[in-house]
């Protein structure tokens, strides 16, 4: 890699996109699956999960905010004094998001 150039813009782009997706779409999903359905306020139709467009949407809904988490968590831990393990920390955070993305794709395809 050239000196002075990093791959940070790439991760920042995923962080930013994940921030938008999380801000707009996550609260309503927590409200539906975490409260409205379990408490019996509303009945969910599980057939909706079979739809290809819904699967694609859910893939984006899970994947991008995971990269958002990875970026924030990584920099927060660094701010809290974990600078010494910079590289392993980055690997762990972004790696978890990559693994989560692969798992999400696999789970959605088998529904």
């Amino acid at each position, binding site marked *: 890699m050239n*000196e*002075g150039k990093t791959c940070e813009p790439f991760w920042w782009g995923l962080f930013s996109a994940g*921030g*938008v997706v*999380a*801000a*707009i*779409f*996550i*609260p*309503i*999903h*927590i*409200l*539906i*699956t*975490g*409260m*409205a*359905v*379990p*408490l*019996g306020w*509303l*009945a*969910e*139709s*599980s*057939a*909706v*999960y079979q739809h290809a467009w*819904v699967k694609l949407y*859910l893939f984006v*809904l*899970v994947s991008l*905010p*995971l990269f*958002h*988490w990875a970026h*924030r*968590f990584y*920099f*927060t831990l660094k*701010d*809290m*004094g974990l600078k010494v393990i910079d590289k392993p920390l980055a690997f762990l955070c972004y790696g978890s998001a990559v693994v*989560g993305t692969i*798992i*999400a794709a696999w*789970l*959605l395809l*088998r*529904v």
Partner: protein
Amino acid sequence: MTSTRPEKSQLYYPKMPANWWLRKRNYLLFMLRELSSVFIALFLAVFLVQIYRLGEGAEYYAAYMRTFSSPGWILFHLVALAFALLHSVTWFQSSAVVLQLRLGEQEVPRSVVMGLHLVVWLVASVVILWIFIVY
């Protein structure tokens, strides 16, 4: 690189105590905002288990959803929702600062940009609710 930047050992690195974020209200709010992503990620992990159960069959899925009515899970989702809302509001606030919209010569005030974000958020939430409940 031929710059005049000093060796790393000569740069000034301020030493911060681990609890610096407890010292001011704004620092604490900053930390809570950063922490919101952890709760969103936790919710998504639980959501992935839900999709796994769905793949096992309708009965497994129904049984799994029933466990969510326990007080512990409701509390978890309440806390996750609170953090998710904190993320939404703070994200829209910072977007309103970053996005400088112009109408002709006039710059659109931040409060209007913030309001537009809230409208998009509300419309998107209603659409998602409709798709997952009514569809």
